[in-house]
């Protein structure tokens, strides 16, 4: 599904390399987790995948189902099936959550040559998805993320994912700021979407989320590289021992 080869990225503004040769292959139907110390480049990777300005790819390739992603605009990447649940979801005063969701869904349908969703179908879809994530209908009327609590923002990200049904879902610390019950809801939301045609890249600091969303593979990122890859046990090891041992071992 997602294939990253030898990706090198530096900041456009300052001459600073952040990613230094990331290799990652996430096949369809799988869940991969990325863990790693603060500042190791996890969010940068997520942003570069989704096409945010301010980064320069100096080397390497990224392909989604064989399609080169790096030349595409962010909206084209979304239409190609990529979705990023933001570590820090953005507040958009004046744009209603509902309008936002409908505009996004229809924009993607249009990009794929499909008809827009009818008002009734859309409403039904949203109600259903919001309901299973325990999202208050009131939150749908409010402006996007404005005044939402940390946990509400994260649930709103998952709602968007559930509505847009992307093929490749990148979740950047979706678990941080969630209470225990909300984490279970979010995990259920993710698990409901798991299928053979879809893949997940879950960035997290905590093993706890991975109890609910069972990963197939766990990667450790440090200093802009994937330094270790293993099974779910790797997350447990991090949880108990921290990163020191792992970093020493690969140094």
């Amino acid at each position, binding site marked *: 599904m997602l294939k990253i080869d030898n990706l090198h990225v530096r900041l456009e503004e300052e001459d600073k390399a952040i990613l230094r040769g990331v290799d990652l292959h996430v096949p369809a139907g799988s869940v991969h987790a990325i863990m790693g110390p603060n500042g190791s480049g996890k969010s940068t990777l997520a942003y570069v995948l989704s096409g945010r300005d301010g980064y320069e790819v100096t080397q390497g390739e990224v392909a989604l189902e064989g399609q080169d992603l790096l030349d595409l605009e962010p909206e084209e990447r*979304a239409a190609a099936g990529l979705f990023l649940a933001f570590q820090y979801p953005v507040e958009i005063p004046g744009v209603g959550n509902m309008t936002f969701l409908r505009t996004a869904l229809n924009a993607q349908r249009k990009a794929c040559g499909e008809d827009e969703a009818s008002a009734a179908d859309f409403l039904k879809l949203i109600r259903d998805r919001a309901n299973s994530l325990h999202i208050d209908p009131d939150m749908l009327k409010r402006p996007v993320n404005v005044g939402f609590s940390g946990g509400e923002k994260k649930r709103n990200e998952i709602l968007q994912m559930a509505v847009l049904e992307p093929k490749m879902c990148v979740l950047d610390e979706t678990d941080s700021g969630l209470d225990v019950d909300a984490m279970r809801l979010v995990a259920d939301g993710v698990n409901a979407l798991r299928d053979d045609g879809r893949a997940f890249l879950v960035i997290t600091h905590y093993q706890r989320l991975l109890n609910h969303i069972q990963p197939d593979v766990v990667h450790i990122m440090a200093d802009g590289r994937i330094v270790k890859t293993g099974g779910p046990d790797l997350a447990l090891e991090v949880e108990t021992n921290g990163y020191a041992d792992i970093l020493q071992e690969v140094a």
Partner: protein
Amino acid sequence: MGLPARRQEDTEARVAHLVVPDGAAWATEVRKQAVSRYLAMGLPERRDEYWRFTRPDDLNAPQAPPAAVVDFKEAPAFGEVDRLKVVFRDGVFDAEASDDLSCEGLEVERLQSATAHDIHWSKDVYGVLEARGQVPVARPFAALNTAFATDGIVIRATERVSKPVNLIYLHENPDSDAILHFAIKVESGADLTVLENGPAAARFNKCMEVDVADGGAFHHVRAQGRDHERRAVTHMFARLGQESAFKSFTLTVNGVLTRNEAFIELVGDNAVSHIAGAAVGDGDFHHDDTVFVVHDAVGCESRQVFKKVLRNGAVGAFQGKILVKEGAQKTDGYQISQSLLLDEDAQFLAKPELEIYADDVACSHGSTSGAIDEDALFYLQSRGLPRPEAQDLLVLAFLAEAIEEIESEDIAEDIYGRLEGWLQRRRQ
């Protein structure tokens, strides 16, 4: 103390070709007083503090600078609204094109006719509110208007009027210089909505006086703009009685020069005044909102929400003052003026002011100017919105706070439709 010679000459030259229309003795007296007021104040100059942001030259010129008449594909505003149409062509009332204006609780009369009667209710409004609004700041174009207005209507609402009165201003002559005056009285407990749209003339001087009696309500929505080259100077004077409500919204698209002044006096306790504006400008566009709100009673609320979206050299200006007089306790005043600059060539000039002589009041004001939020833009793009669409959505969101001041949902929809059309045309 007279004006400097040069200024006096210009002031006289500006009106040399205008005549005070005939009317009943009271009307002639009001107009003559307005002429004296105008001559005493003189035309504005660039160095006048009140005209610091806007060059008055084109308004001062004896002849109106010509303005090409544009044939728009887009339907005019308020077409879907069930309304009473009052049509003016280059500043002249067109009875043929206007609707029959009989409607329960509504009296409408042409200005010429109203001011010909020896006794008429409009005597208490015409030129009266304008004169009150000349203190503390001079508004010479309003005095000029009272003195020389050639046409207009007077409107009296005595109960809830079921249909809005829609003043439609057609522009057909590239050299027209129109002066229209409207005197409006909303009686106690009555409710009236006035809509305005159309470019009116190459140069348009409009003055509207609105007297809202105790418990009355006045709603005003204006879609200003269309012809690119037209110039406009407009004044709104309002006096609000006890527990009355005044709500005014203006949308401005296009127009090389627009100066919209408002002078609102809250003289009865617990009156409410909301005045809002959304202006979008691209290129040769100068838009100036100059608002003065006077709190002179207890427990009144006033809100001013002005938003401008500017690009490609467009200039927006805002001068807003809330004056809270002694004894106007429990005043609740809010003022916000904001601009969204879509590129580095656009410019926003603002002068928000509070002047408060009462101690138990809650007043706030703020003014900001900024670029589009790149983080929000990226967020929307990452959800599949193409960049231009995402930008338009953010532009509409920015303007929303002003548009939300419109009470009627249908009319607000109409305004949104107009803005979407404008945005879409910019994208091509």
